[in-house]
């Protein structure tokens, strides 16, 4: 089983890139400053999406190797998931 780099709940990691691997977002919780562009890259064989539950952002289906970028312009906590595999959930915390 691959090592999971998921952060424990409540402990977001300062990072602007997220890997999608083994049906998980890694790190599972990140924190960025307003204006940061976050990049998600799918390293799985299956397709995934990056979809905000609140509708702020949403990717198309990302095939293997595909990336999605989104620039956060408003502070807040964004909970997102993969619409194909909704058990894959993660969080972006955006600060001023």
């Amino acid at each position: 089983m691959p090592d999971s780099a998921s952060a424990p709940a409540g402990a977001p990691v300062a990072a602007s890139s997220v890997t999608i691997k083994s049906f998980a977002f890694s790190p599972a919780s990140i924190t960025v400053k307003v204006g940061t562009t976050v990049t998600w890259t799918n390293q799985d064989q299956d397709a995934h999406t990056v979809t905000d539950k609140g509708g702020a952002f949403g990717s198309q289906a990302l095939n293997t190797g595909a990336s999605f970028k989104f620039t956060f312009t408003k502070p807040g906590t964004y909970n997102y998931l993969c619409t194909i595999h909704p058990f894959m959930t993660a969080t972006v915390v955006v600060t001023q």
Partner: protein
Amino acid sequence: MTDAQTNDPHGMTRRQLLRHTAWFGSAVVLTVVGGEVISQIGNSNAAAPVPAANDAPALRFVQISDSHIGFNGPANMMVEQTFAEAIDMINALPYRPAFVMHTGDLTHLSTPDQFDQVKQMMSELKTSEVHTVPGEHDGVDDKGAKYRQFFGKGTQGAGWYSWDMAGVHFISLVNTLGLESMGHLGTDQLEWLRKDVAHLSSDTSIVVFSHIPLFAMYAKWGWSTDDSVQALSYLKRFASVTCLNGHVHQLFTKTEGNVTFFSATTTAYPLPKPGDGPAPTPVTLPAGKLHSALGVREVNYVKGNERLALKDVRLT
């Protein structure tokens, strides 16, 4: 006893297995008699695709599933080819199926090109009707809007519908478009279902199609439908209810009271058995083994016998 993963050809030597040809190869025959599932290994000398029926079937149809047109990974670099092979197998049947049902994940990425391609491919099927239900891969970024553009004619809501044929009431449900829970039917569809079956007599045979299982096969991986109990409560009074699904890319069957559930395999790539590993990652089989995990399903209905006979046939 009711585990349809008996697709393993028990009692056959490898030589015998290899000698078998497309239709009578390693098929498992699942015969439903009065709610009891009987499985047996197909016999190469069988004279008909589905044995043990003295009466002529009132209805024959075929289920295919999970073609994932657009997938391109080590588990299957040629999903379009294996889907075309499945279509060829159906077209080579000694009878013309009343309809062919594709139980979802027609496409892999929900792109217009993939929908167009899979629709064109299915137009080659030698059958009177082609039916579909959407998989979660068919509504990736638009809650099924593109799916309905291509396949939603005559449907209601998110794409659900029903029809009657040869005394059987067929129901196509959509349980793949909920954002945060999957599978999920939702209150609108449940209410539609309640009304849809309200007028039917209790001796009507019911066949329900959905992409995700309506039973809890493995909820952790999304292999269940969180409000299926409500749906099934509307079907309790019927003598015979058969639920046919895809999604899990493997054969499985389970009986609960008057309802028998059958998961179909895929034409694209296998997935692990429930809970086997951390995630439902596509399985890459050793060279030459892929086709043995893929297949199509024949279904016969014999009027009056309350019998649905299923035959799962491997792609060869």
